[in-house]
């Protein structure tokens, strides 16, 4: 479970252009569920997603990762823990928790241009110091799982939109994280590819992964495998759907 208590995120605090992106959110996200944060542009769902994924720290409030997400994970400097309050962790530990717990799928895919699909998938594992051959084999397995083994040596700018997104998903899974964070994953996909994406999410759910998606796409919000839709507006929770 991921628990958010009284989360506030203010950008440019104290300046004339101060902006409250998240204005006091308390929320519990269950493990092995697909949760969608739904809301219009500027509603604060992406900021909320980056706070959940330990990419940014809240201005105030606490975020705790509970048992179930952390089982079997061992963090250097922290050790094996049942739960961890991430908001107070130093940057190094926070990065490690993020690396081991979350896999990110971005709206623009955010693949590194000029290198191959295979190397893009391998990138999250580089700082871990695993054997290069092991990392390479695991990345190839992931590409095979998404039907992209033949495109492994292709540079990412040569890939189609659907292929690029599947590479981005493979990259998100590279360190075998228990939680997948996806920000507007279908924004640049047509309906067929959007449905394909949601099928992949269903498979990941079946494997025990927890998924948090920020989207206002009806294809995502209405997908059968989605357990929970949380409406976000003006940086606050504005109701909940199935």
């Amino acid at each position, binding site marked *: 479970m991921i628990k958010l208590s009284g989360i506030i995120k203010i950008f440019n605090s104290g300046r004339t252009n101060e902006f409250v992106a998240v204005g006091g959110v308390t929320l519990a996200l269950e493990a092995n569920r697909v949760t969608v944060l739904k809301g219009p542009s500027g509603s604060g769902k*992406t*900021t909320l*997603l*980056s706070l959940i994924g330990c*990419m*940014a720290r809240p201005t105030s409030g606490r975020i705790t990762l509970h048992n179930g997400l952390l089982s079997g994970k061992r963090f250097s400097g922290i050790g094996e823990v049942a739960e961890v309050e991430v908001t107070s962790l130093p*940057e*190094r530990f926070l*990065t490690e928790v*993020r*690396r081991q717990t979350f896999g*990110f799928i*971005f709206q*623009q895919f*955010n*693949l*590194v*241009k*000029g*290198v191959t699909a295979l*190397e893009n998938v*391998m*990138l*999250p*594992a*580089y*700082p*871990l*110091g*695993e*054997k*290069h051959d092991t*990392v390479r084999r695991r990345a190839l397995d992931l590409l095979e799982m998404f039907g992209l083994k033949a495109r492994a040596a292709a540079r990412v700018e040569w890939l189609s939109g659907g292929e690029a997104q599947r590479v981005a998903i493979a*990259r998100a899974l590279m*360190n075998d994280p228990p939680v997948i964070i996806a*920000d507007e994953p279908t924004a640049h996909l047509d309906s067929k590819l959007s449905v394909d994406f949601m099928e992949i999410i269903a498979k990941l759910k079946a494997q025990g992964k927890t998924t948090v998606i920020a989207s206002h796409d009806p294809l995502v919000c209405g997908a059968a495998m989605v357990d929970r839709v949380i409406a976000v507006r003006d940086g606050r929770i504005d109701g909940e759907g199935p």
Partner: protein
Amino acid sequence: MIFKWIEKHRSILDFTLSSLLRRKGKNLSLFAVYALVVFMLASAMFLTQAMKREAALVLKDAPEMIVQRLLGGRYDPIPMEYVEKIKSIRGVVSAAPRLWGYYYDPVIGANYTLMVPRSDAPASEKIVIGNGISRTRMIYRDDILSLRGTDGMTRSFTVAGEISPESELVSADLILMAETDFRGLFDFPADRATDIAVSVRNQKELLTIARKVADLLPDTRPILREEMVRTYDSVFDWRGGIMIVLLLMALLAFAIFAWEKASGLSADEKREIGILKAIGWETADVMIVKAYEGLLISFFSFTVGILTAYGHVFFFSAFLFVPAMKGWSVLYPDFRITPFADPYQVAILFCLTVMPYTVATIVPSWRAAIIDPDAVMRS
């Protein structure tokens, strides 16, 4: 643990290499400017060192003291009777008159140094010549060289041999000949010599003996070998120094260029750093990539710069710098310097070039590396 560290660095190095190759244009231009700066600094350094070394070689066998006669504050041939007077000073082992002078050859527009050796002088009408003269005039053993005397008469000399090229700095323009030929050519008075070479028993008494010579023969000037070494050193240091100062400007320009290149990270590079941070790279990991980038560029630029400078100075006669460094008296077309490189000086050059580059690039790289990982989400 150590294997993990090695694997991590191996993977990051792998990624760094592919990053460098992706930005070929930028990195090649940086490499070219960097290598050029190293080349220029190293050329000036190698040349200065080599010239000083040549000078030291020349002076190694020079007499401990030379006594010249002055007339009206200017040099004048010294009377032969002074030899015995100098010998009479306690502590003087030997005093030998020397005969030498300059001859301008209008055919190639160069000055020769004509000299009568103290021992093994060539027979009359025979000469031994330096390599520079041999190369330029294309005359070899048994060829004839004609020189015009001060009386307007041309005298012909047969080349009996060439001087060994151990130090071309002086031997390149040198002609050794018999005393009678020398005096005849220049109409040099029989009771005079160019100067007197003196050697002493105890080096510590050199200054005292020099003072005694000056007291005994007030119209003379004693010159010590150490003074000559110092003069040569300061002449080459001064010439080299001027070049280094000019080149330091280039170094400064290079530091600004490197700063601009590193701080002017393209939008693509910033985005890439953001992606790496977002997928779990720490600031330190990104800094490792930047450090490897700097090291690889530095290493290759420095190596190429040093090697081309070595080739330029020792195999291509430093043709770019030679007018500023060698001076007028030894300007021969194929003048070559004996190859020599001092590891200490190379290490200094390494610090002079690699350090400014590292310092110029580290701050902008760090500023890019501390980008918030969620910047990618917000872009």
